[in-house]
């Protein structure tokens, strides 16, 4: 019985090791300086392994500038916007994680 309970707990803990990431990409109006959600931005999540950088997830933001990345394993990643803006992020072990917004230059 103890073994079964331990196995179930182990299984549940493995399930918990995945985070749903959420964030937003903004762009600044060149004249007025107002901030807008950046639609159509490419958001890539990259992890560095022994074999070099590996692309984990790609998302194209909608009109609200939001991006969503489900079931991401906790760890250190690079968030790359439009292929040239890199941000170092840490994905923690929790069901949902909101990342700080990023501003496209």
């Amino acid at each position, binding site marked *: 019985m103890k073994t079964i309970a331990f196995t179930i707990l182990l299984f549940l803990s493995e399930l918990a090791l995945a985070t749903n990431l959420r964030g937003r990409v903004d762009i600044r109006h060149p*004249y007025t300086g*107002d*901030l807008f*959600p950046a*639609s*159509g931005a490419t958001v890539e999540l990259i992890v560095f392994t022994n074999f070099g950088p590996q692309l984990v997830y790609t998302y194209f933001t909608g009109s*609200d500038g939001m991006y969503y990345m489900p079931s991401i394993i906790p760890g250190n990643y690079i968030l790359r916007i439009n292929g040239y803006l890199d941000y170092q992020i840490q994905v923690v072990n929790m069901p949902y994680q909101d990342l700080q*917004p*990023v501003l496209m230059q």
Partner: protein
Amino acid sequence: MDREIAGIMLSFALYLTYFLIPLVPSILIYKIFPSTSVVASGSFSGLKINSSGAFAAYLITLVISINALSETEARILEIRNPNEPTWSIIGTLELRDGEGNVINNPLLFDLLEISLEPRVLSSANGDIHFKIPGSPDGSPPKRMITLDVKGFGRGKINLTSEAALTGSDMVVNYQTRTIEFSEPIEITTLTQPGQRYSETSYMTPVTGAGE
């Protein structure tokens, strides 16, 4: 003989014609009027020319015939590649914000991507000028062209129907196979004015992380 081989042979014949035909008047001048002086001087393709006699006659006829034969060369190219006559799309882009105000920021054009449905690779900057394959019958291509400024918005060029080609801002020239826009093609941001965000703290980008 298939079209490709015929096209290559015609091209070869054309290039021979370029150089041999001008010989005829120069030989005639040399033989019939040996004392007539023909002089050609000036610059041609970056070279200073100063010649006289039969060679000058040859040179003059060569320059005249190059212009005359260029049209023939275009026709031969069509024979070689009949299924993909190209059309040039020429126009200027204009960026607008959600309230319709024109945005003059050339940096945003660096993010421009042009795509076709069905897809054909092409690229451009603020003043667009690119070629796309036309229809086999020589008519304009039946395509929807999407102009996408990443992170800003999208514009479309609709060539999918005859009605779309008769738009007042579009000049279709069947002779030169050009579709030129008299008015700027608008690229409107997908963001609505109400979607503005307040100032907040942003993540700081890192440099060299992807190296």
